[in-house]
């Protein structure tokens, strides 16, 4: 079994899908000659040429719209944003055009495209470059929003996203690119969108997480396992559509839940998860559901402040103990 980085897993997915389907092209800033700002597209220009691996000017709104137009007439664009922070400039194309085209044309124009790029805070990138956008995007009907946590999931989900006939927002945790994991070679990996995965099995408490925070959840689960506290870690993998059945199944078993996310508290993904839990599992709850998320502030630069602002294993552990009434 090959051990590959998250970034190379994405690279494999892009390469395989571009080999499979000549309608698939990659467009964005620095994706071609520079090999990608985060090297996700390394080698693709050489293999597929400049018509399929397209460097753009710094014009997020423009090239996102070009992707939408190309998708309207049957191509399958993969639009890379250098980071999702810059994608705000293109949000009109994502929200007003891509997400709604199928609906307002009553099914006549599909949007088989992917908007992808790094999401969430990295290290000391400060306020404008350290943001997790999934709750904004998951709010929009018509979009699918995918948040892989492991190289295997990244590959399988990106391949599925490219094959999906809907506009898929693909959020790659910026801190995940260098993480490694098993990705089998010579095997077609396709992970259905909208399906969560249990990353750890336990019956005392559920931790529901997505993207980068899944790694925190696993870390917490493994540490607590030594105390005999067994955590059910549910990796949502896709936050829209959300796998409510998986959440409900876990919480009905454990009666307790902590929801973790990189984004801010208000109207966050966690708020939606908690809503599903209270709807689906009301009579199964033995404790209030708690959330762990970024502090409700713009991301500070100073190392200590940044650490204090981010969700981490310590905060998640504290929340777990609290819902277990262990304080």
């Amino acid at each position, binding site marked *: 079994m090959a051990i590959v980085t998250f970034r190379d897993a994405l690279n494999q997915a892009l390469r395989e899908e571009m080999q499979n389907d000549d309608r698939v092209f990659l467009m964005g800033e620095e994706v071609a000659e520079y090999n990608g700002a985060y090297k996700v597209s390394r080698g693709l220009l050489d293999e597929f040429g400049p018509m399929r691996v397209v460097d753009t000017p710094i014009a997020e709104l423009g090239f996102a719209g070009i992707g939408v137009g190309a998708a309207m007439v049957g191509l399958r664009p993969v639009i890379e944003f250098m980071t999702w922070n810059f994608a705000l400039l293109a949000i009109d194309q994502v929200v007003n055009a891509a997400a709604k085209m199928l609906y307002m044309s009553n099914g006549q124009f599909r949007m088989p495209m992917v908007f992808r790029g790094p999401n969430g805070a990295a290290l000391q990138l400060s306020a404008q470059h350290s943001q997790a956008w999934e709750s904004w995007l998951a709010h929009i009907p018509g979009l699918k929003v995918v948040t892989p946590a492991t190289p295997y999931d990244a590959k399988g989900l990106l391949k599925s996203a490219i094959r999906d006939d809907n506009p898929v927002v693909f959020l790659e945790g910026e801190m995940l690119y260098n993480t490694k994991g098993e990705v089998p070679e010579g095997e077609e990996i396709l992970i259905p969108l909208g399906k969560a995965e249990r990353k750890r099995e336990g019956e005392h408490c559920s931790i529901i997480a997505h993207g980068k925070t899944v790694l925190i959840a696993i870390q917490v689960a493994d540490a607590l396992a030594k105390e005999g506290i067994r955590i059910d870690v549910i990796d949502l993998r896709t936050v829209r559509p959300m796998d409510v059945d998986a959440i409900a199944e876990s919480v009905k078993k454990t009666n307790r839940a902590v929801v973790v996310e990189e984004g801010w508290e208000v109207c966050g993904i966690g708020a939606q998860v908690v809503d599903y839990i209270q*709807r689906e599992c009301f*009579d199964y*709850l033995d404790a*209030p559901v*708690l959330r762990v998320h970024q502090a409700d502030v713009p991301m500070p630069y100073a190392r200590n402040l940044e650490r*204090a602002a981010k969700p981490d294993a310590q905060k998640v552990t504290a*929340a777990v103990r609290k819902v277990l009434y262990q*304080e």
Partner: protein
Amino acid sequence: MATKVVMEALSPTMEEGRLVKWNKNEGDAVKTGDSLAEVETDKAIMELVARGDGVLRKRLINEGDSAPVGQLIAVIGTADENIDALAGGGAAAPQAPAAAQEAKPGAGEQPPQEGAVPAGPAPDSAAPPAQERPRDARTSVPDDAAQSQGEASTPPQERDRRGAERTSTGSQGATLGTGSSEPGDRVRSSPLARKLASERGVELTTIQGSGPGGRIVKKDIEEAAAQPSAAQAQGAQAGKERASAAPAARRISTEGDYQDIPLTQIRKTIARRLAESIGPVPTFYLTAELDVERVAEMRDSIIELGAEYKVSFNDIVLKAVATALQQHPEVNAHWLGDKMRYFNRVHIGMAVAVEDGLITPVIFDADTKGLADISRESRELAKRARDRKLKPDEYTGATFSVSNLGMFGIEHFTAIINPPEAAILAVGGVEERVVAVDGAPAVRKRMNVTLSCDHRVIDGATGAKFLQTLRRLIENPLLLVY
């Protein structure tokens, strides 16, 4: 931070309590859990304990005064804390300041008015649980969703609390509920605990929660529910210890201890028509005269073994009734309005006359207890009843009741059913009568019993069959030990 002492609901049905005796004087140091006062409820005399630490700064009612549940009756604070605002009763109690002025223990100060109830939830005003939405609500159409939102809206007091929780911890980047206690004596319990409690027939008010702020959680219900079955498993040999073991746990009927029978149409019609005919509980009576010659013999032989084995006629009757009930769940039943509940366990309420009335302590799982246990327990319960020391969980939860007026020389009487129980057995005195035995007159010890039956649950033949079984057991008491 001062702690309000309010009249607490010390029995499930208590609306008002009379303060019998203050156990602390103003100025005394108190710790959480200390007994502050003895309070007479509608059923018993209970202890009111401190819910905070400090000094008992102010007593706001006198011994002998009554106060409705929820009324402020004292204040605990630090020695030098200004408690005027609290002792004055706050905005909710305009009359109270007068009561607070220079109140001295035992002095004839002005009693607080009944209206001086501090704002705060009454014991049964727990927020209604939000309605569970149908599973497919997440795909429901907007007009439907709008309705659901209305249904699922947060009760105001919940909303306040949640808001407070968020602001208190949001800056740490984690929304952690504080679990802080809230004023009043609303029963705090998790949704899961409420569901389990309802399934197992557990009264939440009888359980001390182990969660934050005393929240009752799943573990508490399971532990409470596990105790009686553990007691059952221990069997008779553990009886001596069990007689005084936690009664709170024993009174619980959990799922599996009973069967709920939905009402058939004919049952509903019978219930309605009979109720119209005779009153809310359409009762009929079945009387039998039982021969207790052998019971007397058995009792004599037991007593010969020594004073410590002494049992009464009534103990043996209780044992026989319990055994018979075990075989006749259709009599060991409750009428619940929309259904009948047949119990698999036998908890016998034993009517005890007390100075100013009547109370019915319960012998739980009487069918599994030996005669010695029943005898000891009934003696203790009767004494505690007369001393008014019964706890609420010792006089609730009966599945069937027995009333014995034999000691008053009553030959025969009818007892009134204690709803929702479906029947009660009235037991008369044992006396010698001349009866025909094998065609010849003979003097025998005889005893009348009368079963009052709720006709909505029990039909004549059903009640008669129960009495048949009871007769067989009483007249062949060896079956009780078989």
